[in-house]
């Protein structure tokens, strides 16, 4: 068959326009997908790095009613993996950020200054906070440099350079945490290091003979993956975080790192004495839950005595051999290292982990120490459960993860900052029935709630106390909350941060 010059031209253009050009455009994303699945961190020998403790930030000034802090969010380098320099984004340039120690009833005002190249938002997780300081996802602080970066949503209260967050702390003693909450980019920005502890104390807790001082140890557990040169690896569609949000499809169900960090150090080690230690656990990972246990377990009695939850002290201590801690959850536990002989190494392990993620850190029982602490049978003042019969509303929310690129949804709707899913009245009680598929840590801003039931049965073993995050592996849970504190618009969402960034969030407005 003879091909004319015109026919040849037509065939050539057809091949170029309908085959070569489109398929050529596929090379980049195909490579990106292949590379994303192949990144593994440089090998690190576990239990070589001493456990760092985040420093406590001092107020720049105080007056009769408030403490004033200033915090700069900036880029810095840190030696996270021994021998490697890692670029992080940190509050005060460190990861985790400095700890804020607050007193119940005493106001804290933090001026956040954004020296990063992208907008930020700071949320005090677990805080009973007025809406203008809660860190609503579109209430952005633009960079001091003036460069706005991505502005996908314009409905928020935007400030330039700095913002003052006011935390009244009209709540009981509890370990909260602050972290970035920027619309569409919370996952990568927390992953780069924008998270820190915020501990509220009160007289009730002070009066208890619990371990304190060096025997009260905060443990911020995270997982990260590093590139071969020691930089943090996060599979953003746009690594500048200034354009398109989201992660490559293989990470749509969450960024699971292969290196476990505690207080920013890989599989660290802490020397302890033969005494009780209060471990204040926070899972600040983007998506990974941990089933924590001690190996070897103590010869007598349970591994952990739980004394507190997200919302502060329990009324009574609860023994556990294992603790399932989901992203954003906190557990306040006491471990009695007096049950181990000096010279014992006790590993904190993750029974849901495989390979390196099965280890968390190690405690070396290094010395004899006198015991001064006790775990009283009665911890917090008894606070009766909100009465379910007084619930003004029973609302139902279904959290379904996106798959094959479908968005993650609440009640089959993606997040819209302008839509309100629930309008509870101030100082009223509501029951929220949460359904999750397949696995979601669900977090409500503003309120602390109690878990009433799971799948129609009693609450689970890790549901005790006041909570702001409930972890669900399928099925349903009923939680009861009293919407007190402030009127205004807040969000509730999945705290798997990749799900959250993929729109698994809704608004409620206290009216």
């Amino acid at each position: 068959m003879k091909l004319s010059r015109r026919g040849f031209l037509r065939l050539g253009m057809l091949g170029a326009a309908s085959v070569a050009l489109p398929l050529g455009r596929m090379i980049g994303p195909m490579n990106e997908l292949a590379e994303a699945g192949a990144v593994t961190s440089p090998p690190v020998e576990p239990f070589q790095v001493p456990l760092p403790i985040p420093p406590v930030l001092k107020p720049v000034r105080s007056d009769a009613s408030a403490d004033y802090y200033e915090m700069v969010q900036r880029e810095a380098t840190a030696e996270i993996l021994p021998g490697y320099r890692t670029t992080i984004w940190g509050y005060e340039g460190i990861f985790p950020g400095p700890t804020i120690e607050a007193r119940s009833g005493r106001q804290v005002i933090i001026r956040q200054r954004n020296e990063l190249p992208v907008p930020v938002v700071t949320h005090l997780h677990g805080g009973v906070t007025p809406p203008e300081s809660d860190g609503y996802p579109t209430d952005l602080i633009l960079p001091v440099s003036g460069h706005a970066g991505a502005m996908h949503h314009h409905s928020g209260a935007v400030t330039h350079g700095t913002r003052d967050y006011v935390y009244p702390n009209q709540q009981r003693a509890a370990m909260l945490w602050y972290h970035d909450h920027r619309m569409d980019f919370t996952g990568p920005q927390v992953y780069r290091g924008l998270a820190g502890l915020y501990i509220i104390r009160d007289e009730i807790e002070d009066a208890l003979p619990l371990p304190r001082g060096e025997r009260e140890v905060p443990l911020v557990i995270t997982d990260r993956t590093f590139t071969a040169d020691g930089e943090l690896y996060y599979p953003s569609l746009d690594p500048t975080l200034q354009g398109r949000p989201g992660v490559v499809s293989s990470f749509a169900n969450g960024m699971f790192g292969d290196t476990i960090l505690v207080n920013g150090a890989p599989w660290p080690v802490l020397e302890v004495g033969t005494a009780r230690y209060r471990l204040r656990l926070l899972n600040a990972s983007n998506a990974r839950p941990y089933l924590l246990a001690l190996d070897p377990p103590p010869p007598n009695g349970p591994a952990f005595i739980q004394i507190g939850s997200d919302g502060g002290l329990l009324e009574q201590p609860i023994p556990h051999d294992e603790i399932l801690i989901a992203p954003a959850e906190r557990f306040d536990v006491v471990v009695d290292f007096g049950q181990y002989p000096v010279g014992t190494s006790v590993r904190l392990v993750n029974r849901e982990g495989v390979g390196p993620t099965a280890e968390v850190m190690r405690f070396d029982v290094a010395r004899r120490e006198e015991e001064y602490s006790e775990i009283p049978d009665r911890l917090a003042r008894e606070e009766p459960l909100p009465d379910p019969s007084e619930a003004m509303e029973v609302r139902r929310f279904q959290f379904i993860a996106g798959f094959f690129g479908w968005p993650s949804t609440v009640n089959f709707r993606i997040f819209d900052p302008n839509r309100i899913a629930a309008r509870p009245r101030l100082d009223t009680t509501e029951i929220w029935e949460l359904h999750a598929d397949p696995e979601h840590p669900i977090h409500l801003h503003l309120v602390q709630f109690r878990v009433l039931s799971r799948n129609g049965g009693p609450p689970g073993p890790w549901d005790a106390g006041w909570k702001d995050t409930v972890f669900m592996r399928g099925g349903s849970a009923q939680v009861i909350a009293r919407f007190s504190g402030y009127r205004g618009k807040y969000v509730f969402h999945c705290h798997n941060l990749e799900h959250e960034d993929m729109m698994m969030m809704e608004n409620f407005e206290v009216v």
Partner: protein
Amino acid sequence: MTVTTRRNAEQIASPKIAGRRLAVGAAGMAFASELIHLWVLPGEFTLAPMRGAFFLLVAMAQGALAVNLLFGPRRWTLRLGLILNVAIVATWAFTRLVGLPMLITFVRLPVGWLDLTATALEIALIATLIALRRMDPSAVARTRG
């Protein structure tokens, strides 16, 4: 006599020129639609391979349509181009008005300026293809070389 012949020739030529211009315009719109789909393809594919594959198929089909429109399209090319673009516009409208099918329900997708531009182009392309179909086939077709 000479004047009359020239007029006749112009009368015959003008539908042909109009047809050619319409076909080239339609090819440009199809190619622009292809480029928009290719522009978003990498992000869509890495975010959601199935959606990316859909964008790839749309881009390939629009590219093939554009080239065929340039080289004297036949009736079936116009018909297929119409079907293709009506399907693309209908899919876009469905996912924005009703939603993307998800389990037992639909999730509405947001409207962006880029997809809006592509849809506007495709609607214009549909109108152009309809106009081309109404023309005398000889006004659209180019002489075979």
